């Protein structure tokens, strides 16, 4: 059996003194896709925030190891360099910063950290165009300010574009499917599926089954009131679709 990519043990965390995660255990191995489902307020987004190091969240007990490293001791940028990626539920607008400049800074930092030479302008542009085409984004978007004036679907597509650019080992998709029409959903799903490999893993956080029709998870966990109350295979998705979260 492969070693864990991400191992969460007894994680308690919250914000502003309020405990939201009340003892999470999770073990994700390379190549696995895990879905975390649960009603609103269960702590799904808090889990994503804690894993990516969002300021303001406090871990009160528990451990998270990622590739054998203590994830919680790493700065958000270090987590990114190590291959962790969060697709934001509410992508942030950055007025005055173009997608191109934003991604150039991200790729430069990543390569520098890996001890690789910086991309030339041409190399960067080639990668940018390739990944934009991959998520069916118009090349004009490169010059647009990050998420400013984007529709809901465009913002989510921009998240998947960034994911493709950074080629993460572990992607966390936080409600990436909410507010998407079927076409946009398919683009997101194609993006996630295309990045699947025996080494790459993903956590799909959602309260719908929609995205999971296109991206088939290996494991499904039900998160309720800060705890994982049930885990199983993909058949769990149908149980939830038919019965909701009530019985868990």
């Amino acid at each position, binding site marked *: 059996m492969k070693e864990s990519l991400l191992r969460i043990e007894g994680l308690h965390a919250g914000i502003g003194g309020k405990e939201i995660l009340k003892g999470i255990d999770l073990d994700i191995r390379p190549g696995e896709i895990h879905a975390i489902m649960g009603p609103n307020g269960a702590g799904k987004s808090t889990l994503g925030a804690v894993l990516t*190091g969002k300021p303001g969240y406090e871990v009160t007990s528990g451990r998270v190891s990622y590739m054998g490293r203590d994830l919680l001791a790493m700065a958000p940028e270090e987590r990114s360099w190590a291959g962790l990626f969060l697709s934001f539920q509410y992508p*942030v607008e*950055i007025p005055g*910063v173009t997608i191109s400049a934003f991604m150039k800074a*991200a790729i430069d930092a990543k390569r520098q950290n890996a001890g690789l030479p910086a991309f030339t302008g041409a190399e960067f542009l080639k990668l940018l165009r390739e990944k934009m085409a991959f998520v069916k984004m118009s090349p004009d978007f490169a010059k647009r300010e990050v998420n400013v004036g984007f529709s809901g679907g465009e913002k989510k597509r921009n998240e998947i574009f960034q994911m493709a650019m950074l080629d993460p080992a572990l992607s966390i998709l936080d409600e990436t499917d909410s507010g998407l029409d079927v076409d946009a959903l398919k683009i997101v799903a194609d993006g996630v599926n295309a990045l699947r490999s025996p080494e790459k893993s993903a956590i799909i956080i959602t309260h719908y089954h929609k995205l999971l029709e296109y991206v088939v998870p290996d494991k499904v966990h039900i998160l309720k009131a800060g705890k994982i109350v049930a885990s199983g295979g993909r058949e769990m998705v149908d149980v939830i679709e038919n019965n909701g979260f009530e019985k868990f």
Partner: protein
Amino acid sequence: MSAKNHKLFILRPGDKFEPLNLVLGENYREEITFLVLPGVTAEIDLNAELSGAGAEVKIRGLFLCCSDEKVSIRTNIRHSVPSTSSSQLICGIAGGQSRASFAGRIVVVQDAQKTEAIQTNRNILLSDSARIETHPELEIYADDVQCSHGATIGRLSEEEQFYMRSRGIPEGEAKILQMISFLAPVLEGREDKEALMQQIEKSLRQMV
């Protein structure tokens, strides 16, 4: 239309700024840009009287303070005849224990109809102990004019910073990107924008 005159002042440590007193006659157009780099304590005093129809003054300025600088900016624009225009955009960043102030006065005399005057002062505080004051002062005695002013003092958004950091952009780089985008409108439309921005970026790197 007569040609536009450009004046560019780049203030580095030790530099002083001589008060500027301009009288702009008919169709006379003047553009003044000042960049106050870190480590400069200075008073910027700009006075312009628009005394001929079609006269136009454009003021663009930025200041960067990161330690114990004191920067005081005063503009005084007088629209004394009809059909003149002024536009001001001053953006400042203050960190450390610096003190910065902007006082912008615009006077539109009674028969200076069809005056256009815009004044914008935007500021970012980088530390709790820096201080920025902004005092717009508009005296408008004519009734057929378009005048607007706006002043803001804010901080760099931590939400934006986390978003960038989550993509692998180090915190310092994220702040530099934010500050560049905040300052960029000051140099918008200039041919030497890139070159000036490079100098500014160098200064910003000392500040984060």
